[in-house]
């Protein structure tokens, strides 16, 4: 296991090296710094094409190795075209007489010259068409979804074929499934109701974990470090929590003190307490989305910066040092990838536990 992780980390570093090597060239040091910074910025964002790496030819032309992806726009009708039409932002895409420009990784509608108008804050004022493009992140999500589907359907099938025992790679994943059931779902939600939440908890755990790990591979696609993705995940936790909330859950929010105090005493406290409780409903999933986003984003920034440092130092001491640091951070990131998936799942289970909680005395009251 350990040697495999090390191997992964080493391949990661070797694969990421060409990005920065080729980005540099013989430019002065400050230029290189800016370039590395821009490169990291670019890497963290989603992209309209799946480029594996890029380099500059001797004539100063940027070459990209990779595949274009479909761009899907809704602008008075559905418009679908390949992202290669943008030439990585260098040219305008002309579709049905409309011109679209890729500017700072966003698609704007422009005139035939591709003019971008700015407001006083230097933000573009051009209209942005509704954009449902299959971006690099969407492709990675699809790949992960397919991988998970075949992996776990295979595990599910292997039980029937192998006398109730997992087979092959399922042997590795089955204990994790059991761990989520026995140490995350049951302790937080309870023996009675955990089965309702298991599909979500399992899916979200493996989805985040796999995407985190994909982010660490040489492909380096930062999907879980994207706010839209974490928002979508946290939104589901939020919806499930509140739609499965029991009477006790809502009572706890709107009447947290219960019968411990007469009503005239509670009114004054509730002016403060109820808004806090209501805010809590939203803060809980919000913390989930920010935590996952920030952790993955930060991991990628630190790792890429350290790799970038190697090419800034260019000395026999500095480069190996930053190599060592980058190596150590890679190992930590592999741990973080698992940890963040665990935390997201754990906290979701905790919130579901709050929502599905039924107090003991209620059960007794029903029994009578």
């Amino acid at each position, binding site marked *: 296991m350990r040697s495999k992780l090390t191997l992964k980390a080493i391949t990661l570093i070797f694969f990421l090296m060409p990005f920065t090597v080729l980005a540099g060239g013989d430019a002065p040091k400050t230029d290189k710094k800016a370039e590395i910074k821009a490169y990291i910025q670019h890497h963290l*964002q*989603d992209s309209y094409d799946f480029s594996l790496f890029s380099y500059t030819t001797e004539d100063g032309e940027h070459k990209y190795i990779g595949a274009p992806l479909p761009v*899907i726009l809704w602008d008075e009708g559905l418009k679908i075209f390949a992202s290669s039409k943008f030439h990585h932002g260098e040219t305008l895409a002309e579709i049905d007489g409309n011109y679209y420009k890729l500017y700072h990784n966003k698609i704007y509608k422009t005139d035939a010259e591709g003019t971008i108008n700015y407001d006083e804050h230097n933000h573009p004022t051009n209209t942005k068409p*509704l*954009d*449902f*493009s*299959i*971006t690099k*992140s*969407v492709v990675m*999500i*699809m790949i992960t*979804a397919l991988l*998970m*589907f075949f992996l*776990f*359907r295979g*595990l*599910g*099938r292997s*039980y*029937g074929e192998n006398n*109730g*025992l997992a087979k092959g790679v399922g042997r590795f994943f*089955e204990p994790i*499934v*059991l761990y989520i*059931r026995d140490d995350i779902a049951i302790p937080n939600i309870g023996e009675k109701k955990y*089965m309702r939440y*298991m*599909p*979500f908890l*399992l*899916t979200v755990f493996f*989805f985040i974990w796999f995407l985190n790990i994909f982010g660490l591979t040489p492909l380096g696609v930062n999907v879980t470090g*994207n*706010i*839209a*993705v974490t*928002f*979508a*995940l946290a*939104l*589901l936790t939020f919806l499930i929590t509140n739609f499965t909330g029991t009477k006790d859950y809502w009572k706890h929010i709107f009447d947290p003190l219960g019968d411990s105090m007469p009503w005239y005493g509670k009114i004054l406290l509730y002016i403060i307490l109820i808004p806090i409780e209501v805010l809590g409903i939203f803060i809980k999933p919000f913390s989930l989305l920010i935590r996952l986003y920030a952790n993955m984003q930060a991991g990628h920034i630190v790792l890429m910066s350290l790799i970038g440092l190697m090419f800034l130092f260019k000395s026999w001491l500095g480069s190996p040092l930053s190599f060592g640091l980058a190596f150590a951070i890679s190992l930590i990131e592999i741990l973080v990838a698992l940890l963040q998936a665990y935390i997201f799942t754990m906290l979701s289970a905790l919130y579901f536990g709050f929502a599905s909680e039924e107090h003991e005395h209620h059960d007794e009251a029903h029994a009578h």
Partner: protein
Amino acid sequence: MEKLLEEFSLGLFVWQTLLFVGLLLLLKKYAWGPILSAVNEREEGIKNALSAANDAKKEMENLQADNQKLLKEARAEREAMLKEARELKTKMIDDAKEEAKEEAGKLVAQAQAAIETEKKAAIADLKAQVADLSISIAEKVLGEELSNKGKQEKLVESMLDDASLN
């Protein structure tokens, strides 16, 4: 916050939600359901097997206890039988001894009675012989006395002395 909002991409959000919910539903049907039920079934099976083994163990213990009991009973029975036999033996011996003694006593008594009769007969016989002898002696003496008067008297006297011994 502004940067976050700017980074937020509606398209990606929509795709992520659609794909994730689709994946969730597919996995629920084709993966998590079968996996969890298979695992539950297996655990149930293990639990049942364990309890069955426990039951069997208990039954085994019961059987062993029964065996022990039976063995004990058999031993006690043997002991009792042996004891009875021993008692019977001594009793028989005693009885035999008693009988033998009785028989012996009877025999002795019979023998004594026979001896008594014999003795009586012998005495009677002796008396008769003495009478005969006396007569023959008397004949002889009478025969001699007739020849010698003194001698005759002497003889009668000594004879009578002798005869009084009887």
